């Protein structure tokens, strides 16, 4: 079997799956965790601010952070679809390149 790493052109489905999993489970997850980690800001709020307005700000901050985290999910879905589209196009081309008699 040919070694994919030495190919000039082509795709490898297993590697595509591994690539997308790495993006989703590592890069995306780490970024989302960082976005949702608002405790540092809330602690500084507690040290410098008192009142109902502070509590509402903290609550809204968490909602805002979740909104941004949701956008990262949407962006990953776009990336996922694009990568899979490239793979599908290459697979279809491979299938139709030579017809069997």
């Amino acid at each position, binding site marked *: 079997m040919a070694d994919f790493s030495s190919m000039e052109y*082509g795709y490898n489905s297993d*590697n595509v799956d*591994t*690539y997308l999993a790495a993006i989703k489970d590592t*890069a995306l997850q780490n970024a989302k965790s960082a976005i949702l980690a*608002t405790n540092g800001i809330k602690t500084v*709020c507690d040290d410098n601010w008192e*009142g109902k307005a502070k509590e509402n*700000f903290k609550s809204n901050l968490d909602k805002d952070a979740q909104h941004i985290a949701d956008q990262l999910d949407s962006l990953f879905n776009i990336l996922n679809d694009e*990568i899979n589209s490239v793979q599908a196009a290459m697979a279809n081309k491979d299938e139709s390149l030579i017809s069997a008699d």
Partner: protein
Amino acid sequence: MAISMSSASVDDSLRQELMGKSVDSGFASSGVSPNTKGIINKELTGASFAGISTDFEANITKAIDDYISDVNAKLDELESTASPSDAFKGSTVEKALSTFVESVKNVAKAYVTDLQNAENQIIASVHTAYYTQDTDLSTNLNSDSQSINES
């Protein structure tokens, strides 16, 4: 000559004047209108303790900026986590995929920047609101002080 009672009398006109004066509900009856009259008899709402520190804006803005830096650092790891060239071969398509991934990252960072700007705007506005309140209330109080003094 018969003795008759002297017509001497005591002048207590100032006492009479005093007893005729009264403070109406804490304000001189000459007509001081407290600027906060509309809310005086209302039940106190809100927290029993509210305020901001001297370094409120600087400290919270820094906390927000540090948080954003952490998020951006994680987003920058997107390209180093894995490369499309692990899954696809072809110099042009590899470059195009890398560009696409970078574009996705840049959109994510734009959202994060929007979050930073939104939160910092609120904090700056809170600081301004407290400053404005301080000025407004002191204007009201000074006006009432003058009215009381003139009553």
